[in-house]
């Protein structure tokens, strides 16, 4: 029991007549690196928000690190999709990343030297030190994504949830961030759930794949998952993506 990071038990999310998630059973162990895939509108973001406790399931139970999600939020780093926040806000890269330390700093207090140090380290990890005093509104989409990843890292999380963090990043940055996630997963034992459309690279780094389209269609090892995707898409798969390396093993 102790090594379970996240457990979802017959979780449903409905908005009126529309069912977004249907009977989700999912057990994610500590140190898992899961790549969550599936079509747009398949409920991937909703599932992350259920794990964060931001969306209450219509039915079913969610537990995170053995407790209700709301009680474990300080252990979770979250990288949201880029589209939803206030771009015009006059705020620097450092101040955004410091938000990851807001719980560590505590209510009614200023950020400490230690908070600043964590923020610097996180910014360094995503290679943005040169931008530290730049305004967020002056950054490109890819740069903002790296800032958001740094903010989640600054939390010093036990669980990291990333909602399509790689879109519009160039290839070398992508590789760097994948390697970073891999290191966090292996060395710091961080549990990772990565939502991604990047079927060429993401499964190379992840250990497990889940395919979600309202229901969990598949959850297991990436090799079997890949076979399933291949069967589903047939020859089109080869046209659509470059197959990942492990297929040649």
């Amino acid at each position, binding site marked *: 029991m102790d090594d379970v990071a996240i457990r979802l038990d017959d979780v449903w999310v409905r908005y009126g007549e529309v069912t977004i998630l249907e009977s989700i059973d999912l057990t994610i162990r500590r140190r898992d690196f899961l790549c969550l895939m599936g079509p747009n509108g398949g409920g991937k973001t909703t599932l992350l928000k259920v794990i964060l406790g931001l969306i209450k399931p219509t039915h079913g139970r969610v537990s995170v690190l053995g407790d209700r999600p*709301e009680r474990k939020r300080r252990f*979770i780093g*979250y990288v949201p999709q880029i589209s939803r*926040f*206030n771009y015009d*806000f006059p705020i620097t890269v450092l101040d955004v990343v410091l*938000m990851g330390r*807001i*719980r560590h700093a505590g209510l009614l207090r200023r*950020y400490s030297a230690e908070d600043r140090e964590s923020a610097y380290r996180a910014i360094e990890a995503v290679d943005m030190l040169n931008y530290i005093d730049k305004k967020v509104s002056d950054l490109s989409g890819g740069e903002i994504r790296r800032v958001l990843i740094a903010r989640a890292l600054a939390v010093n999380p036990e669980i990291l949830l990333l909602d399509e963090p790689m879109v519009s990043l160039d290839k070398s940055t992508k590789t760097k961030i994948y390697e970073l996630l891999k290191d966090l997963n292996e060395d710091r034992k961080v549990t990772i759930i990565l939502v991604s459309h990047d079927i060429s690279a993401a499964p190379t780094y992840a250990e497990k794949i889940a395919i979600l389209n309202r229901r969990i269609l598949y959850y297991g090892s990436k090799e079997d998952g890949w076979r399933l995707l291949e069967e589903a898409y047939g020859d089109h798969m080869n046209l659509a993506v470059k197959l990942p390396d492990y297929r040649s093993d």
Partner: protein
Amino acid sequence: MLQYEFIRNAVIAGLLASIACGIIGTFIVMKRIVFVSGGISHAAFGGVGLSLLLRTDPLLGALLFAFLSSIGISVMHRRVRVTEDAAIGILWVTGMALGVIFISFSSGYTSDVFSYLFGSIIAVPRSDLILMSILDIIIVSAAYLLYKEIVAFSFDEEFTAAIGVPVESIYLIFLSLVALTVVLLMKIVGIILVIAMLTIPPTISIQLNHNLKRIIILSVLIAASLITCGLWLSILLDLPSGATIILVSVAALTASSIIRRYAEARMA
């Protein structure tokens, strides 16, 4: 001019109001909840009406109604997200309608009503100055203590919630500060024109500055000069003070927008 006590009081009232409206107004503009603050200020009119009926201080009635409406809005924010906009509109008109009904029962106070709708900075008694100072102290200390939470909430509400900051409480506290600010400003420009003073100084300040703390401080200074300047003009030309302050502010905003455009064109 300052030798007259009522003018001295008016200037002090203007300065006290600028502190609140510069700080809170900046966040209102940043978080894009101008309409929410409009709802709170108009709902406060119900309280003014009730106070006139009960013959108590209208500022207290306004404070009560503004508070209640900020609680109402923050609850709606959590429960029925989709219709928040419409709900604020309903709150807005309900407050006004209640005010009118209450006032209709309390005949003989109609000239007072005009001053709460459109402001009467000239008629600020010393007791109101004390109340305004207390409200300012509350607003400044709350904004100082909760600065990082309010900034995080304004920038990215979802992440702030996800990391475990009690955003609903922060929002409720922030709307309560809006309520206090509305009551502070009510004396100066009146309920109908409150939105202008909450939005124009920060908007000018944002045009001139990129650092949030500096934007806030500059907003306070801009609000103070606009109110003082409007007040002086209104006395000089014998015009209604609230409306004159607003027109001076709009003129300043227009000038600052034109200058900024010109500066950008020269830089390019």
